[in-house]
């Protein structure tokens, strides 16, 4: 339905390019399940975090010099001499952390409420692509200040590719544009760090397109039975999202202004030195669980009793680390349970709780040195991480007896499904 308006200008434009109709349809009257909890705030928060990162990032790029001789000094110049440069940089640094916090909660929400299940598989998979792009962007962004952690983090991560059989070392030289992480590497990382956020924006549009095809999942995980189960996005969820944004910004500001380096690493305030490795190389906190998985594979995988090694420990670690993300792509086909929401899955609920704990433990292990007992704990955590997706979810789809589902989204509220119209006035109408 075309947008109803008295403005002749808007009607004139809308007739030629129906952008106002589109925005009205997707952001205003868009029918949304009436029972969304605050767990559904994190999608829009992630979008706002992306905007914060792009705006501060473009301004920082105007002051930054991507050259090994000048990069570190140009960042210090931003901190000391550029008007509000400290604010832009601290907002960008902590914005990255907050972007990941929000996205991780968003992903765990999807995992618990089965948001990846039919018909939202492609929506989910686009989300995993966005996660991968975010990781690549964050990694390359961390290299730009050209501190010790920048340099050695880049060295360790690019060296992962040398584990690829036959062509690995050539690929690493190609990635570097030289024989070590050096000026060509810094330049291309800067170019890609500027490019990828806009690729993320494009993927976010696809993500929203796929989302609006069937609308949001909800805490009950059942489909809306009709208009009485839905309310318009505006004003109900715009105001709920804005409230969540307020809370988010308070926490964000607390870090930016009072603990801007809490989530960073002091070694990155020492300029990169290719001849001295820091005693303890640690990635940013949001990569720690994956770093723990990488380091958990300390054994070769081969044919037993023959001594033939098929996958050495280094390649095994790399495969496990990338596999921990890749497994998310096939998740919709691993979990065959027809019930979406974890609320009605008594066994799933417990395994899911253990999964969340495992991710936190792996994160802690990633920050610890590669010694006992941390290695063994990382190995147990890695085993459970993969078992959750590859063994437990497929088995639960067959073995678990879910609790009965409510008849509709409004039924539990109305106690026994009383007549909908009387109890809730006119659901899809504006107040």
């Amino acid at each position, binding site marked *: 339905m075309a947008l109803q308006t008295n403005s002749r200008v808007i009607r004139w434009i809308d007739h030629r390019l129906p952008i106002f109709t589109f925005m009205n349809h997707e952001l205003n009257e868009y029918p949304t399940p009436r029972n969304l909890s605050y767990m559904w705030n994190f999608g829009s928060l992630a979008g706002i975090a992306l905007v914060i990162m792009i705006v501060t990032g473009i301004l920082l790029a105007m002051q930054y010099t991507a050259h090994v001789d000048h990069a570190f000094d140009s960042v210090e110049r931003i901190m000391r001499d550029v008007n509000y440069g400290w604010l832009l940089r601290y907002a960008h640094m902590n914005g990255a952390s907050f972007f990941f916090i929000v996205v991780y909660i968003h992903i765990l929400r999807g995992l618990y409420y089965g948001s990846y299940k039919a018909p939202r598989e492609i929506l989910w998979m686009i989300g995993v692509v966005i996660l991968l792009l975010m990781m690549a962007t964050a990694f390359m962004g961390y290299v730009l200040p050209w501190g010790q952690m920048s340099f*050695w983090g880049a*060295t*360790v991560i*690019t*060296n*992962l590719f040398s584990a690829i059989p036959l062509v690995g070392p050539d690929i690493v*030289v*190609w*990635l*570097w*544009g*030289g*024989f*070590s*992480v*050096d000026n*060509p590497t810094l330049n*291309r990382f800067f170019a890609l760090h500027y490019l990828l956020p806009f690729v993320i924006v494009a993927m976010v549009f696809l993500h929203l397109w796929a989302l609006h095809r069937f609308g949001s999942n909800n805490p009950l995980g059942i489909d809306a039975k009709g208009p009485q189960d839905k309310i318009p996005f505006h004003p109900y969820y715009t105001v709920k999202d804005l409230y969540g944004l307020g809370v988010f910004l308070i926490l964000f500001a607390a870090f930016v202004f009072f603990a801007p380096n809490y989530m960073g690493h002091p070694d990155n305030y020492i300029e990169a030195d*290719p*001849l*001295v*490795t820091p*005693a*303890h*190389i640690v990635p940013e906190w949001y990569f720690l669980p994956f770093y723990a998985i990488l*380091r958990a594979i*300390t054994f070769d995988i081969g044919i037993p009793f023959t001594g033939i090694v098929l996958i*050495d*420990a*280094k390649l095994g670690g790399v495969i496990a680390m990338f596999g921990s993300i890749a497994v998310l792509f096939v998740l919709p086909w691993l979990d065959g349970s027809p019930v979406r929401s974890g609320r009605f899955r008594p066994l799933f609920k417990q395994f899911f709780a253990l999964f969340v704990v495992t991710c936190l433990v792996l994160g802690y292990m990633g920050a610890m*040195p*590669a*010694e006992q007992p941390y290695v063994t704990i990382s190995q147990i955590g890695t085993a459970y991480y993969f078992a959750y997706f590859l063994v437990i979810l497929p088995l639960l789809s067959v073995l678990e007896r879910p609790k009965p589902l409510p008849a509709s989204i409004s039924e539990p509220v109305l106690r026994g499904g009383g007549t909908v119209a009387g109890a809730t006035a006119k659901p899809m109408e504006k107040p």
Partner: protein
Amino acid sequence: MADTANARQGVEDQSKRDFLYLAAGAVGAVGAAAAVWPMIDSLNPSADVLALASIDVDLAPVAVGQAITVTWRGKPVFIRHRTEAEIEAARSVDVDDLVDPQPDEARVIEPQWLVMVGICTHLGCVPLGQRPSDPKGEYGGWFCPCHGSHYDTSGRIRRGPAPRNLDVPTYAFSGESAITIG
């Protein structure tokens, strides 16, 4: 008219169409690959990076038991003037017991001069062991603090996650005590 012609020629014409389709597609694919290759290759090391690929090092000032680190291709190169005891320790090991079996003789030109790329073969950290105060690991060579790899006095991996011995760069003696690396 085209429709009736197609109908009359039938199968023969179809196979001709398929051939043209595949041939045109193949030419297009080769053309696209030829256009993409310069872009991919532009990311490989450039001529100025390659031009700095070899260096000369004077070994005369390095006394027995001393070690120096020089930069070659942006990487540290370890040069150790080994003592008799260190050479003896490296040569007395049973080669079959090693993770990456290699006799000490294959890793040096002159036994007293050990020249290696000082980058851990695990994930690229710089091992400790060049300075007198550094930890040298359990085998008196080098110790990588990142993930705990121990290298012996021949730079061979003995314990820890690294898969290979420290790399020996291509080098040649250009005089009694001078080498050219690269």
